[in-house]
Structures are given as C-alpha cells and as structure tokens.
C-alpha cells in the first residue's frame, strides 16, 4: 500500500510538477482570464444542455435522449481511453525505470491506472453529472433516480475503462508489429482517415438530403420513430438509462451489473496476465529497427537537408499521421465538405457562393496541415545543435523547411483543385483562382508558424526523440489559420453579391499576396540573429 501511494504521488508529480513562475502577477492575471474563460464555456454548455433536454422532453423523447447521451459519452471515453491507456500504461517513459525498482508490476499498474480513473471521474463529474441532474429536474424524476445515479456514474467510469483496457493490448501488438513499415502505416492511416471522413460526411449528407426532401425537422414523427427504435438496441447504455428512469428497473440493473462485471473482470484478468509481459516486450522492442542498404551519394546541402527533414517525418508514425496523412487525405476531405456545404448553400443562398465555400474549406485544411510547421525548430529536440554547427546559414535551413512544407501543401492544394474542377463542383477559373489564393495564404501561414517557433521553441522531446508536449505555437497557428479561412469564406460569400466572384477573388488574391509578403518579411528579417540567440541548455 505504501509503495502504491509513493508511485501514485510520483505519477502526479511527473504530470503536474511544481509549477512555480518567475512572474507571479502575470501568472495571477493568466489564471483569472483562464478561469473566466472556462466558466464562460461551462455556462454555455449547461445552457445548451438545458435547452436540448427541454426540447427532447417537449417531444416526449426524454428516454431516448438519456440513452443517446450515455452512449455518446461512453464512446468518447472509450475512444480517448484506448490512446490514453496505451500512452499511460504501456508506453509511459518511466516504465523501464520503474521496472528496475523493487515494486510489483501490479503496483505500477494500479498507480498508473489510478491517474486515468481520476481523469474519468473528473470528466464524469464535470460533463456527465450536470446533464443527469438537469435531466432529472426537467423530467421530474423521483428519489430513486437520484439514489441510483451514483451507481450509473460508477458504471459509466468502469465500463469504458474496461473496454479501453481490453482493446489496448491488441492495438499495442498491431502497432508494435507495424512499427517500421512506414509506407504501409501511412497508407493505412490515409485510407482510414479518408474512409472514416467520407462515411461521416455521407451520413451528414444523408441527413441533410433527407430533411430537404421530406421537408421535415428532427422532431418529425418519422425521425422520432427512427431514433426511438435505435435507442432500444444501444446496449448497455439503454439498460443504464432504464435503471435510472425506472423502466424495467430490476432486469436492467441486473443486466448492467452483469455486463460491467464481465468487462471489468475480463480487463483485470487480461492485464494481470499480460500487462508486465506487454511492457517488457515493448521495452525490448523499442530498439527494434530496420536495415536499409544504400549507396553513398552526393547531394547539395539544401537537397540533403530537405531529404533528411522528410525522412524524419516519414519515419515517425506520429509526425507522418499529423502531417503527411492529413495532406494526402485533404483532397477527399475538401471534396466531401464542399459537396455538403454546396448542397446546403445552394438551398439557402444560391449556387454563386460555392467557389467561396470551396476556398474556405480548402483554407481550413491548409491550416490543419501547415500547423505542423509551428514545431519545425522544436522538433529538432536534442539534435538542435546540429543546425547550429552546420556550415549552412540559418536562413537557408529555414527556407529548406519552408520549401518542404509548402511543396507538400501545394501538391495537396493542386490535387484538391483538380478534384473539385473535374467533379464539376467549381468552374475551372474559380478552382484555380482558389488554388492560387490558398497557396499565398499557405505561404503566409507557414512563415507565421515558423516565426512563432523560432521565437519560442520548446525542445520537450520524449525518449523516442519526438515532441512530447503540445506546442503553443501550433495552437496559435491553427487559430489564426481558421480565422483567416472563415474571414475569407465570409468575404467571398458577401463579395459575390456586392462585386461578383471575379472581383471578390481578385481582392482576396491581393490581400493574400500582401499577407504572404508581410509574413515572409516578418520571418526573414533578423532571422539569423534571432536563430543564433536560441539556446538549448
């Protein structure tokens, strides 16, 4: 018990550390702003939930709402749970260290899982509990509802935790076996993302088409019938809901208990048997590498740096997914988004806004892809010194990185453009004008992202040499990229009615050129001095 307590405290410390600050006043202001923002978002969430519950209650679909809500929150917890379990339990950086100490593997497991349980408890209390309370008040539930609520909350924590644990080990095995199959991994990721996204968009498209054709709302008789029928078969979420609202309470309670116990027991047994073995295999296999026989070849310093940068991304499943996979999948995503947006837009405003919508969607995906540039210096990690000792100017090194990011995004933009032109979504002149504008905005966003990282790199890389913490510059780049996309989209849609699409696109092209030149100058002026000042202790 004592060793468990020590390990748990160690786990907490390693995650949250001792957060001292050199500027206490600034820190207090930051905290106040942060708390105010969180409260604002939370108030909006509660208000939204209240409206939603009232709406479902009004149309006598409270039970269905409860089933759907429990199912969705369980799915979210399972989805994020698998990656969390893998990261925290199996691929935690300190596993190798802890294995050397005289502590049992079960103590390590419990200490690590406790953190995960803590997250689940916080999620359940902050996100789920208010919904259950609002539901209880709105639908006038009796004391038994509130008495059984803690049981359902515990089930809501244990169930996804167990499923995530059961799924994590096979996922670990597959990922270990495909570790050095870079092209295969990239292809599988691209296909999965593209297919998943296409399916998601086709479902939404189906709903939009259905509603358009049937001229019906979500709460029409037909839709309610479909939802009610579906809710009957969403196990075990429907049993949890029935338990609470008193419909077939004894049966639902017993079945819920049985299912949760089965999953929890299975997860405990599986982990007891395989946890230590899986960790040890993963530690042992972490050094597993590939052999690639090549010839010595001469490249220019620029070409060599370009190639090295590409290989570093391509040979990392993490970076490859974040950047290459998104770039390859972007045309499919843009096509689908555009199709949906166009069908909605045509209905309400008119076909004339389609090119502006296409541009907006294209820019959104450019922002997602190019946010990767915001870690271009930070990603060097321990190897940052090599960029300093290389007899190549910092400006050249940065320009090579820019060239890599822009060449990938430009190919992505061109493929997207050809796709939306060939499929007849957008006329050729507007499709290629949108591509030109997207390219200029890409230059601006990339320069902006790299400059942010040059100004404040964070070399927090993990044991595998990859960035281990979220980079603030990435979030800022994403935010700015999205803001530009929305502004451009709105300007195009409004501009088409004021001056026509040709003029609107000309204005946007002019603004984009200014943005690109401005961002490039911001990055390049004084770059040598700024880069020279970066110190990595």
């Amino acid at each position, binding site marked *: 018990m004592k060793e468990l307590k020590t390990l748990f405290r160690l786990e907490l410390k390693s995650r949250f550390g001792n957060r001292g600050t050199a500027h206490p006043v600034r820190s207090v202001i930051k905290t106040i702003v942060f708390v105010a923002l969180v409260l604002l978002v939370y108030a909006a969430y509660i208000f939204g939930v209240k409206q939603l519950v009232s709406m479902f209650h009004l149309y006598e679909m409270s039970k269905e709402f409860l089933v759907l809500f429990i199912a969705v929150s369980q799915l979210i917890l399972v989805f994020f749970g698998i990656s969390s379990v893998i990261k925290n339990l199996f691929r935690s950086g300190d596993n190798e260290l802890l294995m050397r100490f005289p502590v049992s593997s079960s103590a390590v497991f419990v200490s690590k899982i406790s953190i995960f349980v803590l997250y689940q408890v916080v999620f359940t209390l902050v996100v789920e509990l208010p919904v259950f309370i609002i539901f209880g008040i709105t639908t006038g539930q009796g004391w038994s509802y509130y008495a059984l609520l803690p049981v359902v909350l515990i089930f809501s924590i244990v169930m996804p935790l167990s499923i995530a644990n059961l799924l994590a080990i096979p996922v670990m095995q597959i990922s270990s076996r495909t570790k*050095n199959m870079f092209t295969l991994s990239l292809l599988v990721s691209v296909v999965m993302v593209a297919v998943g996204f296409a399916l998601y968009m086709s479902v939404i498209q189906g709903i939009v088409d259905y509603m358009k054709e049937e001229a019906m709302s979500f709460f029409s008789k037909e839709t309610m019938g479909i939802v009610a029928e579906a809710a009957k078969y969403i196990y075990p979420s429907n049993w949890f809901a029935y338990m609470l609202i008193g419909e077939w309470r004894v049966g639902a309670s017993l079945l819920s208990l049985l299912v949760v116990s089965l999953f929890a027991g299975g997860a405990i047994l599986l982990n007891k048997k395989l946890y230590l073995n899986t960790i040890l295999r993963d530690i042992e296999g972490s050094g597993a590498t590939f052999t690639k026989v090549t010839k*010595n070849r001469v*490249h220019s310093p620029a070409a060599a740096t370009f190639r090295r940068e590409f290989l570093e991304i391509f040979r990392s499943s993490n970076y490859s997914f974040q950047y290459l996979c998104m770039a390859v999948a972007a045309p499919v995503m843009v096509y689908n988004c555009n199709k949906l947006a166009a069908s909605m837009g045509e209905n309400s405003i008119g076909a004339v806004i389609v090119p502006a919508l296409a541009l907006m969607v294209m820019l959104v995906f450019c922002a997602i892809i190019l946010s990767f540039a915001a870690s271009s210096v930070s990603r060097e990690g*321990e190897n940052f010194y090599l960029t300093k000792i290389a*007899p*190549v100017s910092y400006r050249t090194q940065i320009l090579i990185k820019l060239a890599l990011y822009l060449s990938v995004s430009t190919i992505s933009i061109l493929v997207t453009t050809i796709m939306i032109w060939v499929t007849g979504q957008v006329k050729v002149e507007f499709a290629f004008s949108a591509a030109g504008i997207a390219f200029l905005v890409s230059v601006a966003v990339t320069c902006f992202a790299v400059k942010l990282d040059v100004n404040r790199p964070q070399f927090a890389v993990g044991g595998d040499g990859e960035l281990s913490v979220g980079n603030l510059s990435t979030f800022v780049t994403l935010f700015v990229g999205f803001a530009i996309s929305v502004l451009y989209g709105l300007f195009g849609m409004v501009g088409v009615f004021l001056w026509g699409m040709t003029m609107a696109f000309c204005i946007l092209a002019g603004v984009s050129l200014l943005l690109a030149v401005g961002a490039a100058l911001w990055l390049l002026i004084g770059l040598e001095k700024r880069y020279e000042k970066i110190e990595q202790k």
Partner: protein
Amino acid sequence: MEEKMIISESTEPTMKEENAESTLIISHLKKRYLNSKRYSINDLTLDLKAGEIFGFLGQNGAGKSTTIKCVTGIHPYDEGQIVVCGHDMKKDPIGAKKNIGYVPDNHSVYEKLTGREYVNYIADLYGVPLAEREERMNRYLKMFKITFAVDRQIKGYSHGMKQKICIIAALIHAPRLWVLDEPMVGLDPQSMFDIIDEMKAHTAAGNTVFFSSHNIDLVSKLCDRVAIIHDGELKALIDLHEEGKRESLESVFRGLTMAENKA
C-alpha cells in the same frame, strides 16, 4: 602564493611551436546565459596551434561545455572573439564552421536515419566529394569496427556505437579543428584506444584536437597543452612538454580547484 605563481607562469603563451599557425584563437570571451546574472565564462583567452592536442580540464559546471558550445557556434557569446582558422565566428560563421568537426557529450544524432544516411547527410552539409567521403567512411568504419551496423537505423545503436558514428560524422570532412566534449565517457577500452590513435593521427596531419575531459590521467598522457578552467575563468595554461608538468598535473589541478572551492 604557489597558486598565483602557477597562473602567472602558465597563462603566458608557452607554445610547443611558437611559429605554428593558430587554428583557434579565443580572446577575452565572456558568456552569460539568458536570465543569469553571473558569467559562465569570464574573460577566457586561448590560442590553439596546428598540430597539438589541447586538453580542457575543469570540474562539473566549470564552463568547459559552454566554451566548447561557443567555439562551435552552438551558443552565442556576449563579448570577446573566436577565430577558427582565420574566420571570425561572428563575422564569418560559415567559414569558421567549415573547419570544425564536433563530437557532443550526449551523442545526439538523427536516430531515424541509418548510420550511412547520417554520415552522408553531414558530408553533404560540408560538401565532401564522393571519393573522399567513401575512402574516409570506410576507413573509420573499419577502425571503429561498426561496418556491420552502418546500414542499420541509428535508433538501435548502443551508446558506444552512437559515439562512434558521431566521431565518423565529425571527421568526414577532415576538419582542421576537431572538438570533442567528454569523448571517452561510456566507451570500452578498445574504442578509447582507437579514438586516442585517431587524435594523434589527426594532429600529426597538421590539425588540432581540442577536447574536454574529467580524466586527468588521460589528459596528462595525451595532450601537448592543457587549460584548467574554474568558475568560468582560466586558472592555468600548462605546456606538458615542460619538465615535470605531466607528473604534477593532478596536484596542480587539485590545488587550483580545491583552493577555489574552499574560498
């Protein structure tokens, strides 16, 4: 009194060969880290000649690695001048860096590349022609006995193998100044002998080796000259070819650093 005498005697430029060309000149170097009030290097002056092995001794935190990082262009510095083979590090950093080969203390390399890819990448940066890089790479791979691993991904290399691939990459362009930060840490005896042999061969060809170490015994046996640094300040510059200096190096080092620690 004894300590002052050593300093005043030794900080004078007592070169083995007074007329030898300077490979590295450090003049009045001052370096302060961001948000730090004290100088990590304070008024350091050194002149390294072609053909010598120069040792850099000091306790942990004395400023050895910081000096090396300034010399190689990794860290900026506040005052003073660093000139490598006639190229000022501030005015002509590319010219200066072209003459340096650097082996870091943490053996960091691009681990996703294979050994051959990494060495070729570094050779490309320095513009080494194909015939030269092939000859050098094969020679060093053989010398360090890692030919078998050159086409494997570096991620799977042992500590010593990473150190060796770092050394090969640092020597692939035959630098005039070879800088090594704690090069012997974690190496097996045979690898240490190989590095020592290569250091000697490198200086015999008219180049300079500048390395930091905690190993006084190694420094006393291998180096032509040695600088002792403490709290960022040069405490002694000793020509080990002078009679009795090799034997007395340890006691001098202890005397200087212990006296300072007590003070």
